[in-house]
């Protein structure tokens, strides 16, 4: 009898143990999901903040922005119009527009920015030079050739100057935070550039 009771007792402990662990893990997952979903919500639509001067304020209505891409059978970069909900602050706007350039390739278009390229950071100095820090993919993903390299650089420059002609006069491209001489070995991008 006591043997049987002992077995039942130990089984009970195991069952309860498993149940407890499951509950704890489940709770952790639920909490994590909630935290994540909150973050997404913030990214998609920032809450209306009472402070007017907040840099993350959005413009009242969506704005038309041109990104410069190559038509599949074309020889020159052409503007592709996007409608974006932009932040009010120029640095933030630039981040949004360049992220859109890096990510958007409509059908029948070629994007001269290599796949995988990420915009790390943007900084605009007092001389109206924008420093655009891209991930290494922008250099490593180059297909070679002066034409392709020139297109990668000018697609960024044209998109920037088109969107913020008053705020930005020069652009310097950085790779992973560092100044670089060139992307593919032909075009010199070691200094701030303009057209």
């Amino acid at each position, binding site marked *: 009898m006591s043997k049987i009771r002992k077995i039942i007792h130990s089984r009970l402990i195991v069952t309860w143990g498993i149940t407890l662990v499951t509950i704890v893990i489940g709770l952790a997952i639920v909490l994590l999901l909630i935290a994540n979903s909150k973050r997404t919500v913030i*990214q*998609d639509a920032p809450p209306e903040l009472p402070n007017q001067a907040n840099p993350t304020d959005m413009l009242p209505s*969506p704005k*038309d922005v041109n990104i410069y891409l*190559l*038509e*599949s*059978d*074309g*020889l020159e970069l*052409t*503007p*592709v*119009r*996007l*409608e*974006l909900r932009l932040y009010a602050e120029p640095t933030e706007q630039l981040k949004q527009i360049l*992220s*859109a350039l890096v990510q*958007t390739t*409509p059908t029948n278009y*070629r*994007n*001269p920015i290599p796949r995988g390229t990420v915009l790390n950071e943007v900084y605009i100095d007092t*001389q109206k*030079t924008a420093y655009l820090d891209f991930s290494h993919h922008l250099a490593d993903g180059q*297909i*070679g*050739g*002066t*034409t*392709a390299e*020139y*297109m990668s*650089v*000018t697609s960024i*420059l044209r998109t920037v100057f088109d969107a913020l002609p008053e705020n930005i006069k*020069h652009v310097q491209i950085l790779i992973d935070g560092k100044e670089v*001489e*060139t992307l593919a*070995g*032909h*075009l*010199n*991008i*070691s*200094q*701030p*550039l*303009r*057209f």
Partner: protein
Amino acid sequence: MQYNIKMCLRTFDPIKLFLFIILLVSATHGFSDAETVRFVNGEGDILDEVEFILHDNNIYLPVETLKSVFDPEMKHSYHTPSKQLTIKTKDKEIKLLMGNPSVTIDAGRQTITLTVPPRIIKGEQKLPISFFEVVLPELDDVRVIYKPELQRVRIMQNTSLPSDSSEINPLWTVIIDPGHGGEDDVGCKSQTGLFEKDVVLSVAKEIETLCKQHGFSIYLTREEDVKKSRQQRFQIANRFETGLYISLHCNASFSQNHKGLRLYLNNPYGSLRFRTAPIPTLGIKNLNIRTQANFLQQSKDFASILQKELNFFAKDPIAISEFPVISLKDVYMPAVLIELGYLSNLEDAARLTNQDHIRELAQTIVRSIQVYSAKVGHTIKSNGATAEESSNPIER
């Protein structure tokens, strides 16, 4: 994030539509000049555009063509019973028999056999295009190149080019820089697996051979498939007191439609500009500052010679672009970057595997070097007459 993509769809207004229809009709029916051969001189100027007749897939031209493209003094006569055509040009007498491929110059002193014979077509004596290619160089000091795909014949004077090394300044050196190289830097690639580093090296070697034949001092920044840094390449060039720097590359584009040759100059204030102000124009103070910028005008001169010479390879004029070019950055002599063709374009890539095309490219580049060296006076001429002739191709 969500983006509403509004494509900039081109609106079809009636005028554009009309022009489009005209273009379509002319493209399908062909322009009238689709049946002509264009004759150009060494500088690419049009000498004449001549209508041709196609016979057994061979192009035939009227005898009068010789007058407009070769010798305005040319005279010819035809003896119907014997079917003999006699042409008098450049103090020589040429005899041809219709239907017979042999050409006799000066009563049998020289006989040339053509691939196809001259013929009577539509009641007139016609010369095959090979007559122009093969016979003209025997009558005068000219080179004739026929490009069937462009329906273009180029007749170039052979004068003005230095023939032996005693005429050339031994200090003036041609530096050929085959771009890229080594395991890590193959340059661009074709779909067929062709590497830029290999194409440019084979063109560079061909140029080296030809330059040596013409007595030029020449140096390659790399002789084999090895990695060379930009600084190493610049150092090699700057060891030489005076010369000309030519960087060879192959192009690539995201569009397969991009094709042809392109020329690039290092100008930090060109179509793309640096923020820093250019160094003020050369004063006594700046004379010791050696920069690429000091050679920009000379680089432009050489590029325009190259442009004229290389134009023969292309339907569209070859573009010269100026912006900050890193591959020419610290070269202290005139410097030009030549993109020899697009490896991303099937036609260009196929041509760049063709040994004949590579040789022709190299010949044209060397000819440009010769013309330039004669112009800048690095070729010491043995007598005044040839020196004068040598500057003609540029001034004309």
